[in-house]
């Protein structure tokens, strides 16, 4: 997200951000979804499944994990932010998964 000097000043003074930066943020979000053609339900399902896979390897906070779409230059990226509590005992996991 880009921020201008005015946005920072507004923030410091506790004022609303300029409407142009609000428009920018809202557009980027809505376009990421438009471009990927994913419904919110599918996004949620994908988020759950990704978290389940990751949870096989590391201990994560399922509720805190965020998966979102971000877009730049007509390229849409899937961005996952998954806070890791601690790694699981990797070796035993590999055996478990392969068996």
């Amino acid at each position: 997200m880009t921020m201008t000097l005015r946005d920072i000043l507004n923030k410091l003074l506790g004022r609303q951000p300029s409407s142009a930066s609000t428009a920018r943020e809202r557009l980027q979000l809505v376009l990421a979804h438009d471009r990927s053609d994913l419904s919110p339900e599918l996004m949620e399902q994908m988020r759950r499944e990704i978290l389940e896979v990751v949870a096989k390897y590391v201990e994560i906070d399922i509720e805190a994990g965020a998966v979102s779409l971000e877009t730049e230059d007509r390229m849409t990226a899937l961005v996952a932010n998954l806070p890791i509590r601690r790694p699981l005992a990797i070796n035993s996991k590999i055996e478990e998964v392969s068996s």
Partner: protein
Amino acid sequence: MSKNTRIILICSGKGGVGKTTLTANLGIALARQGFRTAVLDADFGLRNLDLLLGLENRIVYTAQEVLEESCRLDQALVKHKQEPNLALLPAGNPRMLEWLKPEDMQRIVSMLIDDFDYVLIDCPAGVEDGFRNAVAASKEAIVVTNPEISAVRDADRVIGLLNTHSVEPIQLVLNRVRPKMIASQEMLSVNDVTDILALPLLGLVLEDEQVIVSTNRGEPLTLSSSKSPAARCYTNIAKRMQGEEIPIIDPSKEGSSIGDKFKRLMQTKIF
């Protein structure tokens, strides 16, 4: 068959952003530069290009009769009196939409390319059949948008569809730009829109009351040597279409008063 004819779709997705006004003004400007230019009204549902060009009373036949072969192409083309290099092929009856196919649009355009250097297609709003028909006949595209959230979103959708139809190049025209609002960051800036849509900018058109005046008269601004801001913008866009290098000035970066300088400082992007 003239292979050099440039067939350009003028589209936007959203209605009311200035497609038809741009088509009329570019048509006249290109004709004035000496190019044989045809403007094709592909908005069969809600045609208006005839009105903006002041040609509504001179229509005898339309694209419909040409397709049905009940008249010749040159009988349907309406030549502009002041600018005889420009001809309009009017849209037919809205009922044409029931049977019109992409191949029909391709047929009309293929009839035009022999006699014209430019074919500008005024696309209907929306992304349905009318849009698909018009895209099928086009080689390149100009996407028109306003610095407004809904117009930019719809433009993005249209760009995606143009990409899947291998239309290229696709260039952007940003219409109804208000420099003062951009300077005070209450309007998306030129850079915001080009960054989001990731298209090369062919030009911008300043908000200008004269556009309404010219529409009232049916005389596009580029027809006279009008010095109005929008007229200059349209003429510059037509020149850039020829590859002339005319810099695009960011209007919100203009001005030398202390206030202007302060506003510029406030636009500095921090991160």
